């Protein structure tokens, strides 16, 4: 690395440190953001494994109801729409945070959490109705792989809701460590990731017949 480039990197790091962000003097990038993208990249492998397992076992449900008998496409479509709209409210929260509007940031974060809760509620309703139709976690390979995949996703959404509400509390008390806009953006990245995973699940699991 040339001396001029090194000096620029140091200048970038100093400038970002002034805003409270942890920036690497070598890359000039936020370490937190770098870590979040690395985490999301690794999450692709986790969900890839779960989706592949479901695709392999979706036809293994001899003697018990299968996807064709269980799926409630109108309900799942509405919950997919709700999660998609939560991505919009999340990006609006990030915009508000970048404009340093704490009140609006908290409002959009709360709306995002509310939409996420609606999605989780719909998923709990769906799981309950499957259980009443005689399909539990251990009923068949199909049900085990389905509940594991969608359950893992539901846990991710729930963790996202907890993070969103915690962030609203922390912003309200003005106790955000470091760069506030960056913290909102990092949680936003996680939330959008949960949304893109559902985009894949909705198509591969629900819309493509077994």
């Amino acid at each position, binding site marked *: 690395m040339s001396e001029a480039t090194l000096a620029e990197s140091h200048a970038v790091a100093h400038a970002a440190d002034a805003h409270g962000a942890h920036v690497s003097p070598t890359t000039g990038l936020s370490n937190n953001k770098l870590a979040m993208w690395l985490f999301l990249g690794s999450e692709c*492998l986790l969900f890839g494994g779960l989706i592949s397992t479901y*695709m392999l076992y979706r036809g293994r449900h001899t003697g018990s109801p299968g996807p064709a008998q269980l799926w409630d496409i109108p309900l799942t479509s509405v919950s997919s729409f709700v999660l998609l709209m939560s991505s919009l409210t999340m990006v609006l929260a990030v915009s508000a945070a970048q404009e340093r509007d704490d009140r609006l940031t908290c409002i959009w974060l709360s709306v995002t959490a509310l939409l996420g809760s609606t999605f989780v509620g719909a998923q709990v309703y769906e799981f309950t109705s499957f259980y009443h139709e005689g399909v539990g976690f251990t009923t068949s390979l199909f049900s085990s792989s389905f509940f594991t995949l969608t359950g893992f996703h539901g846990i991710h959404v729930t963790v996202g809701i907890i993070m969103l509400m915690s962030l609203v509390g922390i912003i309200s008390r003005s106790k955000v460590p470091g760069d506030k806009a960056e913290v909102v953006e990092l949680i936003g990245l996680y939330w959008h990731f949960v949304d893109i995973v559902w985009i894949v699940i909705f198509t591969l699991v629900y819309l493509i017949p077994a």
Partner: protein
Amino acid sequence: MTTTEHIDHTEAHPETHGHKPNSFYIKVAAALAFITGIEVALYYLTLGAWYLPILLVLMLIKFLTVVSLFMHLKYDNRMFAMLFYSGLILAVLVYVAALMTFRFFDGG
């Protein structure tokens, strides 16, 4: 303005380069909702062999739109895109290979 001052306001916060007006995000969300509507409509139509490829293309469009525009990957530093897409491509390759091992694609 010195070079250092210029860096202070731009490179330190590269994400602000991807900052768009709220109306832009609302339009993107409307487009995503519309595509979801098309997906659901296709489910109830009989398209035969065309159904699967159309559905996969629509899924890919939605996926890339959220990643590029809502997650700002299109405007952000390339290092972030490299990290994310490395994980994604690795996952696709590994699991396609695993599914091929189980003869998933030839219906075996």
